[in-house]
């Protein structure tokens, strides 16, 4: 429910149309002789003035973004149960420590003796992630989950090349997140789907048939996108390793088993960890995230450069290593995100991290219990931190998952994930996370039940939702057909 009538805000380019000489910021004073650019730079390279760039006052900018902010939903507003996104609370302490000038105002290419504290943060975070996952090596460099996937798959490619093997295929379950097959092809592999069995887990027989000498790796999400643990993971890893392949784990769902199970024991060779999911760093409206990758002994030599190493009480950087796959981005990673994640791990500690996954799983099972019957559960297999319903009961009244999602907005909740898993038609993938109070989870369940009732009694009300949001249902088809991706002065 919106708190006020504010519904639109003009574009900044529509403000101060006459460019009345307003200023938003004063620069430090010129205390050196002025230079005319055309006197020292080639004339052909100098910019023509652009009369359409903004010139507004400071408070106009503050008001502009304050008003825009009021058009957004946020984790702080209510339950944000996007499945596989782990939209947990973003602790304010982490925001505070990441803004310390000793972290934010240092340069990645300063002499290492001037940034020992920063290198310590990275080294300690790396050690903690190795410990949590039971793996031998780590890189903190990847900027996001998909970037971590690419890093892991490129390491696998290099390890196989070192064995003199040129395998061309990566196997990905049909329940996987879209980045998995995209990563495989981005890394030069052909991605082939493994069908799911009747319980939503990998069909071992199908895997057996697909797993030949062309297969470099199998990418698995544990638990998978249905929230179901691959209960035969050890057999899968043995089968894959026995035929010369490697196991890539998508760690998007680590929040469900940290402190309960170990990827090292599952036979993983590489696994990325979304710090912006399990380790509470903010999603930021679409990033920045961080996707560190932990690896088995077999892949340690291929970890990206630069690497932070500890020598006694000092930390150093290794920039060159012929075995390494090389750097995947500039510098060491999204460092200020790494600071936040370490603050989270230190705060929760061993006991808190285990409680974290316990309550995350408990809440998901509460949702499952309360909504089962009202919404259809295609896979009745026990699930961990998330549960995937579908809209087949409501579809009888021509109400689909998108409609349910939009109606949830009117009830003041963010909708669940709907775009995958592809194996569930009309999916509603719900992940409450552990940080909210149970009252919030219960209120969400009540809203879902109320919407299911509306779908029977007043289906049009649901189909025409949302009714209470700053804008009504947005015409996404028109956006793609009449493409307009920037403001132009002709308007």
């Amino acid at each position, binding site marked *: 429910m919106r708190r006020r009538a504010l519904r639109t805000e003009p574009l900044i380019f529509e403000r101060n149309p006459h460019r009345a000489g307003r200023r938003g910021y004063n620069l430090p004073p010129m205390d050196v002789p002025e230079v005319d650019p055309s006197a020292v730079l080639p004339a052909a390279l100098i910019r023509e003035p652009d009369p359409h*760039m903004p010139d507004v006052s400071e408070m106009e900018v503050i008001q502009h973004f304050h008003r825009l902010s009021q058009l957004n939903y946020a984790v702080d507003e209510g339950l944000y149960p996007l499945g596989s996104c782990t939209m947990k609370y973003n602790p304010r302490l982490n925001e505070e*420590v990441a803004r310390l000038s000793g972290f934010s105002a240092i340069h990645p290419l300063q002499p290492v003796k001037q940034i020992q504290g920063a290198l310590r943060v990275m080294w300690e975070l790396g050690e903690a992630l190795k410990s949590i996952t039971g793996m031998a090596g780590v890189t903190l460099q990847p900027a996001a989950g998909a970037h971590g996937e690419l890093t892991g798959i490129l390491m696998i490619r290099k390890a196989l090349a070192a064995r003199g093997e040129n395998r061309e295929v990566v196997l990905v379950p049909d329940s996987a997140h879209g980045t998995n097959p995209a990563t495989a092809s981005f890394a030069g592999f052909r991605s082939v789907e493994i069908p799911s069995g009747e319980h939503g887990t990998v069909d071992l027989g199908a895997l057996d048939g697909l797993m030949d000498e062309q297969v470099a790796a199998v990418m698995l999400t544990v638990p998978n996108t249905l929230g179901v643990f691959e209960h035969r993971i050890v057999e899968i890893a043995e089968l894959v390793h026995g035929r010369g392949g490697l196991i890539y784990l998508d760690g998007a769902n680590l929040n469900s088993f940290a402190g309960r199970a170990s990827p090292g024991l599952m036979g993983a060779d590489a696994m990325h960890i979304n710090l912006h999911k399990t380790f509470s760093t903010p*999603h930021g409206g679409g990033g920045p995230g961080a996707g560190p990758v932990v690896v088995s002994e077999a892949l340690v030599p291929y970890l990206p450069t630069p690497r932070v190493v500890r020598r006694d009480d000092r930390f150093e950087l290794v920039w060159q290593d012929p075995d390494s796959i090389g750097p995947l981005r500039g510098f060491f990673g999204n*460092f200020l995100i790494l600071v936040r994640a370490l603050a989270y791990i230190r705060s929760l500690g061993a006991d808190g991290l285990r409680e974290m996954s316990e309550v995350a799983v408990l809440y998901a099972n509460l949702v499952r219990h309360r909504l089962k019957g009202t919404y259809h559960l295609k896979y009745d297999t026990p699930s961990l931190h998330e549960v995937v319903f579908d809209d087949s009961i409501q579809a009888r009244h021509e109400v689909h998952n998108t409609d349910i999602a939009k109606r949830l907005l009117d009830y003041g909740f963010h909708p669940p994930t709907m775009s995958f898993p592809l194996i569930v038609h009309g999916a509603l993938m719900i992940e409450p996370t552990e940080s909210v109070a149970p009252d919030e989870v219960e209120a969400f369940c009540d809203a879902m039940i109320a919407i299911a009732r509306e779908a029977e009694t007043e289906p049009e009300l649901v189909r025409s939702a949302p009714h209470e949001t700053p804008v009504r249902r947005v015409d996404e088809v028109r956006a793609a057909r009449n493409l307009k991706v920037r403001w132009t002065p002709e308007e």
Partner: protein
Amino acid sequence: MHPWIGAGHDDRRNILEELGLSSIDDLFASVPPQVRVAGLDLPGSSDEESVRRSFAEMASTNTTMNSLPSFLGAGVYRHVRPSVVDAVLSRAEFFTSYTPYQPEISQGTLQAIFEFQTLISRLAGMEVANASLYDGATALVEAVLFSHRTLRGKRNRVVVAETVHPLYRSVLATYVEATGIEVNVLAPGPDGRIDPAAARAALRDDSCCLAIQSPNFLGILEDLPGLAEAAREGGALACEVVAEAVSLGILAGGGSLGFDVVCGEAQSFGVAPGCGGPHLGFFACPEKHVRQMPGRLVGQTVDEDGQRAFCLTLSTREQHIRRAKATSNICTNQGLMALAATVWLELVGSTGLREMATSCLARSEELKRRITALAGPWRLAYPSSPTFNEFLLVGPGPSSELVDQLSAEGVLAGVPTAAWGGSWPDGILVAVTERTSASDIDAFVGALGRVG
């Protein structure tokens, strides 16, 4: 009970009871016993005050760019960061929200990205810009892969100027190893610039891309019109990489000079140096190639009532729809950093950005003049080449030792180039911004006098 976990002991017991379970362990029955662990080998939980203190201690051991006159650059710059930027970024409505897949409750983020795309495309001299990429290095990679796709994968070679940031080139090497794309590196002439005739000669029938950084790694402005022409004649796309985005305050974006892609790093627009991240990659191209563009894109449309609204668009290019055939595997990008740049650009304004760039230029020219006037072993590596706010300084010894000595003299002198290789002399990359005061310049020149 940890404060970041929402359920108390009684809550947990009540829920377990409702579920008909006797213990939490029952919830994990599907986890096979062989992979279970009894707990984590980490220290126990900590209270807020203890964590705050331990981080303050770690932070205090670093030497910040604010504590001494700083001339560090090489792709990461210390520009003004108005307090307004962090105030906006600290709003939970922006920093705690997810990617705006639900446009009805994400218009704030979507409109901010639309404004970001507009600002970047205007600065780049291009028609369209995306919602961000990870950083400048991966933006170069995406530009190369974009060129390869746009020319339908028939041309498998790229020509990259050696004066593109060496770290960007290393990242490109990592990515292309698996793709069959071959990278040729083109050395600069004796003036530290890429000769368009040499670029034309390096481009063969199978080249898809000519990648140029300007101002280049050595701080020198490249002959962009000549290089765009060379690429056009060679049948390749011309890609400009910008590592110091403030230069666009006085320098024309490559789009208005014949380039097909303008991409790079926009950390200078209000993003903290942050020991290397998070920073802000950007990517702009002509509208005719928009379907080959990587990353997210926000478009304008209307809602049911005909009111203007924004949403993510052309997602058929992206991994969550296209899966293995996506233009890139990028998903999470640098959204909040794009917001920082939007706030920063709108606050500084068109006039402010031009003044800032002019100020950087004036301070850099002043420092170059003072060094040239200094009797001693220090010299500019390329004294007659045009620079914006950075230049290569050669001194009496190996650059990394000189940087250490200058640091002992109280200045963070810049980035030594020795470790990066290159056909240029070993030296120190010295960067100047509008925050470099006349007294910082005095301090630098004084330190050179004592070390030389």
